């Protein structure tokens, strides 16, 4: 693609993308650290996540402010306009991802005193792996303007949903086995729900990437396999 005749305009657009990449990088860290904090029961690391999330909020504010400035001063058109819309949308998805990761860390602090068997969190670890891979791929898809990779992410969200369903069942079982597990399991259940939501935000970003590259919104119905909203606790 040719460069803008006005170089400072091209530089402003590039700066938006750099800031978004930085935001994405921090979100990947937050998610990975939350998972480590959960696995190692490490309140210090959880505290670090809670603190670091502020940087994500700050970056989102900066991105929004700069996007408004560019719209006001440059009147962007076509692919430039789509890029600016996309950056603000993706920034708000990333801000939510940051919050959800932070919330997992808060729960790590809440259950710090409890003992829990390792297998209980293995399902969550699996969800973290999937969510991290989705997040990484979708951020790459944006920076490479790769609609195919975005579409792949979009289709893969089902895996997270499927894992979430089994984690949900597993945690219910633990709760039924021993009511003393309920407090712990509820926190883990919310943690799993957060990870499922992070997957949804990655899917949102995939749709945005598709819009940037192709100029059209994905119209197909999103693949959905989270069935927990209709699950019941059935006594065997």
């Amino acid at each position, binding site marked *: 693609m040719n460069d803008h005749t006005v170089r400072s305009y091209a530089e402003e657009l590039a700066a938006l993308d750099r800031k978004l990449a930085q935001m994405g990088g921090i979100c990947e860290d937050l998610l990975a650290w939350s998972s480590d904090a959960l696995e190692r029961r490490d309140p210090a690391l959880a505290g670090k996540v809670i603190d670091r999330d502020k940087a994500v909020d700050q970056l989102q504010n900066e991105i929004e402010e700069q996007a408004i400035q560019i719209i006001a001063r440059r009147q962007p058109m076509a692919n430039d306009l*789509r890029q600016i819309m996309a950056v603000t949308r993706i920034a708000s998805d990333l801000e939510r991802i940051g919050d959800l990761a932070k919330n997992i860390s808060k729960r790590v602090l809440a259950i710090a005193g409890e003992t829990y068997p390792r297998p209980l969190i293995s399902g969550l670890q699996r969800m973290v792996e999937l969510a991290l891979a989705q997040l990484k791929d979708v951020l790459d898809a944006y920076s490479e303007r790769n609609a195919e990779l975005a579409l792949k992410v979009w289709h893969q969200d089902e895996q997270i949903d499927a894992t979430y369903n089994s984690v949900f069942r597993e945690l219910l079982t633990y709760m039924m086995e021993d009511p003393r597990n309920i407090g712990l399991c509820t926190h883990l259940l919310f943690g799993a729900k957060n990870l499922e939501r992070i997957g949804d935000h990655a899917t949102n970003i995939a749709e945005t990437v598709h819009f940037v590259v192709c100029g059209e919104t994905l119209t197909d119905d999103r693949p959905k396999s989270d069935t927990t909203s209709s699950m019941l606790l059935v006594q065997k």
Partner: protein
Amino acid sequence: MDHRIEEATSALLAGAVLHNHPPKVQARRVSVHYGGKQALFDVDLDVPQNSVMSLIGPSGCGKSTFLRCINRMNDVIPVAKVSGDIHVDGQNIYDTDLDVVELRARVGMVFQKPNPFPKSIYENVAYGPRIHGITSSKSELDGIVETSLQKAGLFGEVKDRLHDTGTGLSGGQQQRLCIARAIATRPDVILMDEPCSALDPIATARVEELIDELRENYTIMIVTHSMQQAARVSQRTAFFHLGYLVEEGETNKIFTNPTDQRTQDYITGRFG
């Protein structure tokens, strides 16, 4: 804000129903040579009735040349040679037995710089209907002058000084006077060649508002260097480059997701 939403909605709706409008102007394989130099290459373009079509592109791309073909203004340039067919309402305007003066009454034109005659405001508007013999009486002529000035959104500002000279008006008022003059001959099509380039933003907004109102009764083709203006006023946009019509389509589409790379480069400021 509400007003803008309304405007955007009506523009969208207009875009959606345009396909039902018959083409008012139909150009096929239109080429123009200025002496040995070809300025326009095989342009095919349909302009739907009661719509605004913007012609955009860098200087020298042929958009004004094309606009001037529609009322045979190129006839007055001795070295210009036009080939191909242009139909207005199904009639070939390059037919040898066509009355060019009558054509220019049907296809009016507004230029870049307001160019009122050095006569009174009244005379500026009355001139066209008089020479075309549209009116038979003074009172009828008075009526046409008043209606035309009203349609051009100028009557309120000049009704007490209709016999003052037209060149004494402000730039924006002069341009609206020229639009009133173009309307007075009861045209079907109005051609505008950068009508706002010499106007301040308020006067520009008035002319744009006027274009939107005129669309109800006229078919408008406008050449503009302002992308934003093209995006604001038109339902369809045609992009010209180096004498070729590169892309033509709904304005909504052209400015958000154009098909051709050259269109994208031009409207985003990457060349031109």
